[in-house]
């Protein structure tokens, strides 16, 4: 694994996570080192139970590591209490979930504005930003629709706009295409790619879809709670290569 160089936005240092399931202790992550540079789009891949989702939760401050530390935007999460982490999440992290998680009683536009509301901001000052985000995700004409009046792909677009509204340091996506058909999924991935290229948005995406991973600048492979492989540059855009590596992981061969 190469050492971080350039502007690191998010880093995990020797992070471990243990779960207690009855009498059994599960090692979800074992002393993982991980970093993301500003403007980078990183995909995390791994089979079920590899710890990829756990890593995402820890990076986003949704959960705390058993050991090790996460540094997000220059702040060490282990030194912050729940409220401070919540505040950091609110202002510096954007989340995209597999099941969209929009508030069903709010319109698309209101869902996008939700983080601003939670932050107690005056929405009138952010009207332009909300409108331009809705335009960015292609839903300017659906702004008054409630989630149940939108397709899955459209709902996920709303949640991307919601994730971007606070101009977060990092966007964390948990299987964003996992609940979508391939056409809508492609649209979402294009959108994420564009926000990286055009807005310079840093993105970490967990997925087990090689096609989704191929949109990233870098693909990190996880197995049994350890980072076992990584693809950079052009290699990271090669779906077939990713698929081969992934298949190898699942069969238990760790390529060199």
């Amino acid at each position: 694994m190469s050492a971080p160089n350039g502007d690191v936005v998010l880093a995990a240092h020797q992070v471990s996570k243990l779960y207690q399931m009855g009498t059994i202790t599960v090692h979800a992550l074992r002393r993982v080192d991980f970093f993301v540079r500003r403007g980078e789009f990183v995909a995390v891949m791994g089979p079920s139970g590899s710890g990829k989702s756990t890593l995402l939760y820890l990076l986003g401050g949704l959960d705390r590591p058993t050991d090790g530390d996460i540094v997000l935007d220059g702040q060490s999460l282990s030194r912050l209490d729940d409220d401070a982490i919540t505040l950091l999440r609110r202002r510096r992290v954007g989340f995209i979930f597999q099941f969209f998680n929009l508030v069903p009683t709010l319109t698309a536009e209101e869902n996008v504005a939700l983080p601003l509301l939670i932050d107690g901001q005056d929405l009138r000052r952010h009207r332009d930003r909300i409108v331009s985000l809705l335009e960015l995700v292609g839903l300017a004409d659906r702004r008054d629709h409630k989630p149940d009046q939108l397709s899955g792909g459209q709902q996920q677009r709303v949640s991307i706009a919601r994730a971007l509204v606070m101009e977060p340091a990092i966007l964390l996506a948990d299987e964003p295409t996992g609940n979508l058909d391939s056409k809508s999924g492609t649209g979402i991935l294009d959108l994420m790619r564009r926000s990286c290229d055009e807005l310079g948005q840093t993105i970490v995406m967990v997925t087990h879809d090689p096609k989704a991973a191929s949109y990233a600048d870098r693909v990190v492979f996880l197995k049994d709670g350890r980072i076992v492989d990584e693809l950079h540059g052009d290699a990271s855009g090669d779906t077939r290569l990713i698929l081969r590596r992934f298949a190898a992981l699942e069969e238990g061969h760790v390529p060199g």
Partner: protein
Amino acid sequence: MSLAKTRELSPVTATSPPRGGVRLSSFYDLALRNMATRLTRTLLTALGIVIGVAVILAVDVTNATTLASIRNLFDETSGRASLLIESSAGAGQGFDENVVEAVRRVEGVEAAAPMISVRAALASGNPTGALHAFDASISVPLRVLGVDPTVDPQVHIYRLLEGRLLLPEDRRAALITSSLADDLERHVGDEVEIVTPDGTALLEIVGIIDKEGIGRTNDGRVVIVPLPTAQDLFLMRGQLSQVDIVVSREMAEDPERLEQLKAYMEARLPRDVNVSYPAARGKLISQMLKTYQLGLSFFGAVAIFVGGFLIYNTFSMTVLERTREIGMLRSIGATRRQIVGLILAESLVLALLGSFLGVVGGLGLARGLIQTMTGLLGTELETFALSPFSLVKSLAVGVGVTLASSLVPAFQAGRVVPLEALRVYGRPTQSGLWGKWVHGIGAVLFIGCTLLFFAEDLIPPAFKIQVGIMSVFGLLLGAALLVPPVLGLVEPPLRGGLALLYGPEGQLGSRNVERSPLRTALTVAALMVGVTMIIALGEMSNSFRQDILAWVETAIGGDLYVRSTTPMRPELGRRLLAVPGVEAASPVNFFRVRMWAPDEEEPNTVVGIAIDPASYLQVASFKFADQQVDVTARVRELAEEDALFISTTLADRYDLQQGDTIVLETRRGRREFRVAAVIVDFTAQGNTVTLSRRALYRYFGERRVTTFTVDVLPGADVEQVRQAIEDRFGKGGRITVESSEEFRERIIRLMNQSFALLNTLVAIAVLISSFGLINTLLMNIFERTREIGMLRSLGATRGQIVKMVLAESATMGITGGLLGLVLGLMLARFMVQGLNIAGGYRLVYHFTPLPVLLGLVLALALSQVAALYPARRAARVNVVEAIKHE
């Protein structure tokens, strides 16, 4: 790698909402949005609070209104008078008219208006009413006032609408009120015929006054004539029944000087009159209404109790349903405090909405209650006494209970971790609150409060009612906390029965009740409260009914009651015996009298009942408090000495026993009477003393009779005898005959009226608890969506799923019913006991199976009806959707 199936695109309606942009200005606006979305549930949740607040406010307003109206009525009809002189033998009795001259000579007296006030009837009217059980009426068919035309307008308020006021030279002239004129369709110059002891008299209407001031007397059913005319017509020559006194203004406004004047006059005037303040007259009536109002307050509190439960239940449901949403809000940066605040904001809106609607409903309910009171009192209650304090109190209770009930769910919401956003369905929430120590508290509360009832004698009398009400709540709360262990005990044997009814899926469903202990416990507890109330109220009203009817049977006795608007001559008794079919006739008089218990400074106005002991025992009998009493000796003492029987009510209130003495104010001054026995008597809510007619004549100068109780020969037709009496003596409508059957019906009707409102409140409590049941079942199904999907994928049919839910609900219903049965039967006893303490009744608890059966059947039926919708929802769970995720 297969991609997930496309989510179906919901059709976008052609008329999508106008582009209003973001209509939220704060995060907490989400609360409003949520409530609006779940409007039906919001309104149903508010229902409990609405009812609780409404009842609390309505009872307050009714109490205040009744008191204020009675006070006003006496204030207004007594006009500017500051003091009042009446006969010591009670209002309406006569005294020497020379008292007026004596009063006028007293320094400080500006005017003294002599008056005769007699109950009478219109010749065409239908006289009814007598002092009897429940009869708190302060109205009579007609009141005739004889006034001094020159003095009276200085003292009383007259508002002349038509014609003129009375003149000193008037003889057969009368003023009537506009309301009476409307009723009779009479005008100035017409005549009105009234019944007098010697027949009837025609009076010319010279003026019509407004129903105001003196016109409010007897709710407007009043005829005002010159004093000499009244004295003539009602055989009271040289006599007065009251003198209203106006004093100088300085004196009227200085309570101390007024009290001095009162004492001075009392010392100077003859012993057969007494001086009082006009407002003191309403006291007896307000005392009699107390029991009823207490009952209403209690049920208002129960409504709040159940309402609080419903709020807890609904908010738990809301939090559970929105766990993922809350997790998402936490993920994107909402703090715990913001989440708790969000739920509390919802609760606050609900509290304000519910309390506001409760106030509106309470004002409406108060109108209904005041109507009932109007019926009981027989007079219009005009003022609507809404004090800011009652308003604030009811609002505070509504808001407080709502917020308190939503606190636990709000903190549960605050504990939702952001990771919940990534789950598909909510996890079963197991509250850590529900440990063994909670059962311990429940057991202590339950046993402690039960003991409190049995240790009733140890509690100081002044606190008995408060302690009683508190312990009822303690009992209910204790039982609610004990629900889980009871469920554990009851469920296994029930399982077998439900397996018979619903098959193996019935067993499965029944076992499910163990899974969300807190929620299930609260649901069962709410059902329990409903069933408890049904059974307790049913048992209590039946005991009441049986005791009152038994009392009517024995104590009142007789087959027919002969009454008259003006007192009857005693000789009528003999003439009644001559009517074919009459076996016995006994004269009875009812009158008001002031009594002093030993060591009591303040007198209490009670109802005196004068009987003729010899003939009385032919038509009725006494129900002695002490069963072993020597009846003959007691009755002989009553007949031959200065002795009386007192009611159990008075005996309890003043701690009196046989052999004690009490003082009555008679025409011959204050006299001591020995208590010869304590008897059970429900007349005038038990505020009675029973005397012999000999004493009535000797001390109160009264020979005439107000009622004859007539016994009909065995085999004779009661209706025929009644007809014969009416034909022979009822000329001119002076005499009415009521059969004991009609009398009993009248009492039952009055009783049903009093219980109707309580029954309504109970019905609402049951309705609320069944809504709680629906809510709980929906929550359970929501939590178990995956499990239901799994069962369906294993081959369970929709029908089997329905049966499973029905069985689960049946187990809750039966458990709630059984607990309610135990508590209801206990409570019925305690409530009867409480009524005895509060109202001074001497009721005995009688077990009646009907309310018990009703309670149990209702609990089971409700559990099945309430489960229908949740069961359908469960049956419709989409198998693929349910098992696909996670």
